[in-house]
């Protein structure tokens, strides 16, 4: 929404460029016109861009509050669900007007930090640059509920390329000389896959109000090889330049589902859970995994562990995540004073070989799953107060696979 406006301000970030001035009536009319137009064609959420670049003459947010109220009023009458969700980039942590949050959710770049000593490597870190983690402002939302910190999306953002693409130490927020999406697009598929899982888990662990926005389609700037766009799609005649990240994105979302949906089930006993990210070391498990253990009530000393193992592929992996919640298996485990163990290896596809994301990475115990399984048992033993978990016998409940 910030382009082609009649009344402008100098862009504080880029000399010679300009942005709209939201304090001007013409700008507000234009914003209102755009908002109403998007709503008319069926849009239910509108990203407002760099709102904090456009309010240098609106420090009290009177004008933003005015125009956003107008857009929401229009949505209340004309939108499909009589509302519209508005968000924007918020370097300050959020736009709050007299205790009222002006956005329905916040957005910000991930702020990826390069690791100059490890070629092309980059990580996420609290405190790096102006990352939003832990800083999203709270208040009363446009929908009427209150929060201390408004939920937010962090995206793999685009803004251009430095003068030294591909090289470290370009300064500022460049990652190996690129913006975030261009750096990401230049990594291998395996690296991108692992990194998306890493970023998803890191954001979730770091700030419960933060959520990784998966990349879908985004402009990139890469003068060295001419790449102009990142597509997550599988390559096809429609999207020949797709980088094939669809399966990873689907698997990340699917693997995340159980942790939210299984919590309400309480039929006795208690649950413990550990997550291990995929390792990049060749002698360690290269597949992320979630292990869940159910412990029956009233067993002072456990006699064994029923290990419920899933099969190969993504569907089996997802189904496996609920095994420890099965009441029949729990009844059997309780009868014999056993713990019930379930695994969910986060494979990326249906392949049963050693190609990236394939299941052989985990179902061959020599490739790291044995060590990870034993490590989990040690963690569960410590967490549960049942040290015998490290030494009691195992009963494998599924004969399709021989590994843990």
């Amino acid at each position: 929404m910030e382009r082609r406006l009649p009344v402008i301000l100098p862009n504080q970030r880029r000399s010679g460029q300009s942005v709209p001035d939201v304090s001007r009536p013409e700008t507000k009319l234009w914003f209102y016109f755009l908002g109403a137009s998007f709503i008319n064609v069926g849009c239910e959420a509108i990203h407002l861009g760099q709102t904090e670049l456009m309010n240098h003459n609106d420090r009290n947010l009177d004008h933003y509050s005015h125009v956003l109220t107008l857009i929401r009023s229009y949505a209340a009458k004309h939108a499909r669900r009589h509302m519209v969700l508005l968000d924007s980039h918020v370097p300050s942590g959020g736009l709050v007007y007299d205790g009222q949050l002006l956005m329905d959710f916040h957005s910000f770049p991930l702020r990826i930090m390069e690791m100059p000593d490890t070629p092309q490597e980059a990580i996420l870190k609290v405190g790096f640059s102006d990352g939003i983690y832990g800083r999203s402002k709270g208040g009363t939302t446009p929908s009427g509920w209150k929060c201390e910190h408004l939920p937010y999306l962090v995206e793999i953002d685009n803004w251009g390329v430095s003068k030294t693409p591909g090289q470290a130490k370009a300064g500022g927020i460049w990652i190996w000389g690129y913006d975030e999406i261009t750096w990401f697009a230049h990594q291998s598929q395996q690296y991108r896959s692992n990194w998306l899982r890493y970023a998803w888990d890191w954001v979730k662990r770091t700030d419960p109000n933060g959520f990784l926005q998966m990349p879908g389609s985004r402009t990139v700037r890469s003068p060295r090889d001419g790449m102009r766009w990142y597509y997550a799609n599988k390559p096809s005649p429609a999207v020949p330049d797709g980088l094939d990240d669809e399966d990873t994105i689907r698997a990340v979302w699917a693997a995340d589902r159980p942790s939210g949906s299984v919590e309400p089930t309480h039929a006795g006993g208690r649950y413990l859970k550990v997550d291990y990210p995929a390792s990049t070391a060749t002698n360690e498990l290269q597949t992320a995994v979630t292990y869940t253990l159910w412990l029956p009530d009233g067993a002072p000393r456990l006699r064994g562990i029923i290990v419920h193992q899933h099969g190969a592929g993504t569907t089996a992996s997802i189904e496996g995540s609920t095994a420890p919640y099965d009441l029949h298996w729990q009844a059997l485990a309780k009868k014999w004073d056993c713990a019930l163990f379930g695994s969910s290896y986060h494979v990326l596809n249906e392949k049963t070989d050693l190609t990236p994301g394939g299941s052989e990475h985990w179902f061959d115990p020599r490739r790291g799953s044995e060590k990870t399984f034993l490590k989990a048992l040690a963690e569960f033993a410590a967490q549960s107060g049942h040290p015998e978990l490290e030494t009691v016998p195992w009963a494998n409940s599924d004969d399709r696979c021989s590994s843990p």
Partner: protein
Amino acid sequence: MTYHDTPSQPLPEMRYVDASAKPSEKHAYAVMTVNSAGLKSEPAAASP
């Protein structure tokens, strides 16, 4: 319908709250199971 021997998601909450219960009256409750094909079990013994 699934061919896996694990519960489907979302998992049901193993709890029931009778919002219509009246403090001065006795109520009886029984558990019944329904499988994914729709077959229902006999109710378990009711408990007050």
